[in-house]
């Protein structure tokens, strides 16, 4: 069983779409929606709810009436989460902003009156769904941003458990944009990263930062260029840079009016079989199959040459392979 994490650096390049497109060509896959700011996977896949599991929420500070308004907690809070209320009649005069409070408990430590309590602020939930290619896990709306990394870890653990039970061979984690705590948490213990980008300067800059993150975590990386629309110059530059870094270039997915229309209309995504997008996605899925097989044996040398392995088991539905000469690195 392997886990692949989709990252991009820049937002809006189509990680979620690539995850969904891949899922239509793979069987027995577990998808994880690790973008807790904007989890969109469930909306574009036909799904049936099957599982809900609680994860305990953080405890956040609350100032009781024993407070003598000394203000020491406000000065000690490193997150500016304790504010003085404007109303002159309020007691206590200090209040904790629940969004900014990280539950670190320093205020409790320093309060001379022991007037600060930490109260559970609501559990988070992980939700599981049946989808056509397997299972999907996402987090129910959860407001404690400092816990997002922990929540992603929880989601992925659950996905692993489910994958074992279902004999699923692949977990695809749709990562968040950026390279912050959620992205870092997505990579821990994953087998490899699929970097998704588009042929623009801003996306390339984000790609480079995302690659710095994956290489620091020693995760092997492959690349797909999404929304390819014929800008050969930018595309070649990105692909050449990837090769120079040892990132396996797996292919280009063309821009698709079909996907755009489906997303806008809120329709579940259906890829028709005979489009260029479908062909390129199948090609991507084949390349990934080889890439992931090899990572298992080459985990300690992420920059070694990648070999196409035609002996291993494939994640694909049994269909004739359509090899595109020259597009997979020998």
């Amino acid at each position: 069983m392997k886990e692949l994490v989709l990252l991009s650096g820049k937002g809006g390049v189509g990680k979620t779409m690539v995850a969904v497109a891949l899922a239509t060509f793979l069987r027995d896959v577990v998808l994880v929606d690790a973008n807790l700011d904007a989890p969109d996977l469930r909306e574009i896949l036909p799904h049936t709810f099957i599982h809900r599991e609680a994860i305990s929420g953080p405890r956040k500070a609350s100032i009781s009436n024993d407070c003598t308004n000394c203000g020491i907690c406000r000065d000690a809070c490193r997150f500016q989460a304790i504010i003085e209320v404007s109303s002159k009649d309020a007691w206590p005069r200090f209040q904790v902003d629940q969004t900014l409070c990280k539950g670190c408990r320093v205020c409790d430590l320093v309060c001379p009156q022991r007037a600060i309590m930490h109260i559970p602020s609501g559990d988070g939930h992980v939700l599981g769904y049946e989808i056509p290619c397997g299972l999907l896990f996402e987090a129910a709306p959860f407001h404690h941003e400092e816990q997002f990394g922990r929540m992603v870890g929880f989601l992925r653990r659950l996905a692993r458990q489910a994958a074992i039970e279902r004999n699923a061979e692949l977990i695809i984690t749709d990562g968040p944009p950026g390279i912050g705590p959620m992205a870092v948490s997505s990579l821990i213990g994953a087998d490899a990263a699929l970097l998704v980008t588009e042929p623009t300067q801003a996306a390339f800059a984000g790609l480079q930062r995302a690659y710095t993150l994956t290489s620091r975590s020693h995760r092997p990386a492959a690349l797909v260029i999404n929304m390819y629309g014929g800008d050969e110059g930018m595309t070649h530059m990105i692909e050449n840079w990837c090769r120079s870094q040892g990132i396996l270039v797996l292919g280009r997915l063309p821009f698709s009016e079909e996907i755009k229309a489906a997303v806008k209309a809120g329709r579940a995504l259906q890829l028709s079989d005979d489009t260029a997008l479908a062909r390129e996605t199948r090609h991507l899925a084949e390349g990934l199959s080889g890439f992931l097989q090899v990572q298992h044996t080459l985990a300690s040398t992420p920059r070694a040459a990648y070999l196409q392995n035609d002996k291993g088991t494939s994640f694909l539905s049994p269909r004739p392979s359509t090899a595109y000469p020259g597009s997979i690195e020998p």
Partner: protein
Amino acid sequence: MKLAVISGKGGTGKTIAALALARLASERGLRTTLVDADLETPNADLLLRVVWRTETRVWHPIPHLHADRCRNCGACSDFCSSQALVKTPKRLLVFPELCRSCGGCYRVCPSQALLPESGSIGTWRQGTADCGLHVIQGRLDVGQTAIHSLLKETLAQTSSLAGALAIIDGPSATHAILHQILRSADRALFIAEPTQFGKRDLEKTSRAARDRALPFSVLLNRTGAEEPAMEAWCDEHEIPLWGKIPDDPRIIQALADPSPFGRSTNGARDVLDGILTRLIRVPGPGTQQ
């Protein structure tokens, strides 16, 4: 006046909108600062030619272990809510990149074995783009998790400037980071995509702004001929829709182009000019395409 340009979803067009507004303001002669607060992947400088003048590294205190004094009692590890300190049978492990600098570990250690030392979070730099536009950009060190600290420093640079207008290009964020940005602004402009994801994003973010009593308006980006669903939603919730920019990939380059005889922006420049006028109530010059 500080305007925060925001959305929760990535790729909606925050950077280009913020940049174009800042440039238009600068062209009108207003003292303007563009703040690139997308610290994980800052990219405002890719479309602007900026001459950078200063770069400042931002540090935060992280625990340094004096192993000779440590009794491995685990008090710090129990207290730490970031898993930056982990007690193992043999010794205490420190993971500085997870530290959020709450300052608690030093207080609970009975042996004075933990002392703060400086850890780098990232940098902010400032410079000037064409037409006198002042630019400030924050950049997080890859792997760092203490985003709020660098964001605080980056946003703090706007308070010391005697500028008429500061435009903050925000990251895709919906929770604490968004609140941090909203708290530093006088007004928010939400960049919305006319999709179901954009609508959900708008619902969540407008609530956050309303909770803070922060004036909030919407710019609809990448629209088709008409977007009845989004327009109806804004109308129903009494959220001002300040403009619509059509879906045309040439607009980005055209808006970024500094030449006054630059390419047609398909009406986008007029929309942004209109937004700017509403922001500052100063009539603009007649626009040219």
